């Protein structure tokens, strides 16, 4: 009958309940006596309702029903005692009225108690669910991080109100914004797996702004903010995080923002440590870059070695003939016919040597080319992938723009790739040497007039000096301390062999621009005759 279970009420509250119970019983007795033994005509029994209201505080549902029955009984007994069997209509109505009031009140109190029980049950369910979540969160083998991003949301809402629509542009224009954001997002909890990953104890306190753990140049940060700004649900990217020793680890971060705004304080971010894979990736890219460099060097090296060898023959003969000629001339008397013959042989040997040189030059552009239809943008992206290590190492950003629907070109894939690698590597080196603050290379691809496609490589280096610009494509010309200076000369011949052109100029703002013009694949209904040079290879 008692509403409260053991332990639900404190000692003083329990004493109050007991006092109330006693008071209720006393009042009930008083009402009964008044009703039965006095001649007060009003519906005294209605006052039983007050008892019920008081008693509901400490009675269970069964108790409420029982008390109601008792009060009803008392009222009825009073009536019978007072009026015997001959009650008049007035008193009968008064009894019915009292009983009705009692009934209605009891029903309402009963329902109130039922609702209270239901609410308690629902609270218990919620709490159990919360415990389960906590347990799963804490014990998950994946590193999980609970964050409160409400601060970030208000910052972004403010920006939107100020009229900012392109958050990426805003972030680029305000470099300190990212760091400010790491102070707006708060760390709520980390699970055991994440504590292990960071080298913290399981119960270490990592609450506070995430700036403690996330360096402001973390690559995942911009993506995270952009997703939050644009209302995207998910964001996933590589990021950097500081561990307990302050070392930076590479991790893969994924976040799914909660649906309800009210839950933003419980945003969960999953992390996977990919430091080792990144290390392997860096090593692999370094190896690829080295391979690309070595294969270029070896090709040029092999060519040089064979040319040197071939030239030594006629030069040897030339020297011997010159020596002989001199000896014939110095004889006493000089042997003129012999000297003549020697001189003629010298001429012949000299011509032979120059033929070798000519052949070499054309050999650079005459190695069999497998021509095909090449899509430029994917090729440029491949070049970017091959040179990613170099780009990251020298902190140079590569931008690729395609203007409109660019045609495919007729070219030899690997040779063109070599040219691109050469041009971009030169661009990176120029930027590095000039120690420019602005460090980017921009590749633009666009349709050009006369059935050509233009690909320009622009750097933010020092540009090409006026006296160099003439000689830049000549063999053996270089301003670098290391290198033979063959790169651009070979590039130019390679491009020309494919029916294209390679030129260099300075950009109007800063840096140099190298422009590659390549023949576009002709549209099927427009047959045109190719340049003779382009058909020297085999059209696949």
């Amino acid at each position, binding site marked *: 009958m008692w509403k409260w279970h053991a332990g639900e009420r404190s000692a003083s509250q329990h004493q109050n309940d007991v006092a109330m119970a006693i008071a209720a019983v006393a009042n009930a007795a008083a009402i009964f006596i008044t009703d039965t033994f006095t001649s007060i005509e009003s519906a005294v029994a209605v006052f039983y309702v007050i008892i019920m209201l008081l008693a509901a505080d400490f009675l269970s549902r069964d108790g409420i029903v029982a008390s109601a029955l008792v009060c009803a009984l008392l009222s009825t007994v009073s009536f019978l005692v007072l009026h015997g069997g001959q009650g008049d209509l007035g008193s009968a109505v008064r009894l019915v009225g009292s009983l009705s009031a009692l009934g209605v009140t009891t029903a309402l109190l009963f329902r109130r108690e039922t609702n209270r029980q239901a609410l308690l049950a629902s609270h218990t369910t919620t709490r159990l669910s919360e415990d389960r979540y906590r347990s799963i969160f804490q014990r998950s083998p994946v590193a999980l991080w609970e964050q409160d991003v409400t601060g970030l949301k208000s910052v972004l809402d403010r920006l939107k109100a100020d009229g900012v629509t392109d958050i990426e542009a805003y972030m680029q224009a305000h470099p300190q914004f990212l760091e400010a954001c790491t102070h707006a997002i708060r760390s709520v909890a980390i699970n055991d797996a994440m504590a292990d990953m960071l080298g913290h104890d399981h119960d270490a306190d990592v609450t506070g702004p995430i700036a403690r753990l996330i360096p402001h140049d973390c690559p995942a940060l911009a993506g995270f903010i952009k997703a939050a700004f644009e209302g995207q649900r998910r964001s996933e990217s590589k990021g950097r995080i500081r561990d307990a020793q302050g070392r930076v680890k590479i991790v893969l971060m994924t976040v799914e923002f909660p649906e309800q705004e009210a839950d933003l304080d419980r945003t969960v971010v999953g992390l996977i440590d990919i430091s080792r894979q990144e290390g392997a990736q860096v090593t692999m890219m370094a190896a690829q870059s080295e391979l690309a460099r070595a294969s270029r060097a070896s090709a040029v090296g092999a060519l040089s070695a064979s040319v040197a*060898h071939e030239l030594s*023959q006629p*030069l*040897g*003969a030339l020297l*011997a*003939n010159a020596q002989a000629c001199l000896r014939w001339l110095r004889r006493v008397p000089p042997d003129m016919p012999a000297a003549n013959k020697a001189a003629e042989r010298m001429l012949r040997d000299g011509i032979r040597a120059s033929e070798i040189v000519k052949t070499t030059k054309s050999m650079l552009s005459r190695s069999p080319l497998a021509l095909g239809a090449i899509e430029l943008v994917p090729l440029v992206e491949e070049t970017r992938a091959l040179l990613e290590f170099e780009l990251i190492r020298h902190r140079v950003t590569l931008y690729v723009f395609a203007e409109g629907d660019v045609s495919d070109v007729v070219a030899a894939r690997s040779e063109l790739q070599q040219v691109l690698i050469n041009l971009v590597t030169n661009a990176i080196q120029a930027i590095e040497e000039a120690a420019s603050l602005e460090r980017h290379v921009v590749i633009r691809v666009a349709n050009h007039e006369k059935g050509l496609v233009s690909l320009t490589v622009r750097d933010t280096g020092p540009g090409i000096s006026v006296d160099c610009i003439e000689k830049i494509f000549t063999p053996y010309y270089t301003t670098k301390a290391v290198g033979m200076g063959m790169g651009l000369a070979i590039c130019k011949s390679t491009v020309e062999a494919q029916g294209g052109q390679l030129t260099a100029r300075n950009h109007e703002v800063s840096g140099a621009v190298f422009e590659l013009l390549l023949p576009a694949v002709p549209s099927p209904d427009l047959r045109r005759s190719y340049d003779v040079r382009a058909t020297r290879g085999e059209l696949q």
Partner: protein
Amino acid sequence: MKSNCMIAIVDDDLAIQEAMGDVLRSYGFRSLGFSSAEEFLASGDRKAFDCILLDVKMPGLSGLQLLELLRRERDPSTIIFMTSHQEPNIRKTALAGGARAFLGKPVDLDLLVTLIEETFSDR
């Protein structure tokens, strides 16, 4: 006597044969050119040659192989290599095989003539 000295020039490059031949003639040496090791071996009187100027890389039998062959026959001729292949391994093999000298191309003619004259002064 110098006019008795016969030198064989074995080199697949005709220009070298002619040039070397003429230089040696200006020093008073007689010489004969062969375009391959086989041609030299097929020639009649090999004993007549006191000195052989030899290239390393030739079609067919290489200079080193010819050297080995001659040594097995106990041919006493002086063998001097002239080559544009300057690999140390080849040089070692040649000298170990009994070559008098291993010269690189273009040949240092003063040195060559000195070597040849040394050969003939020994006879």
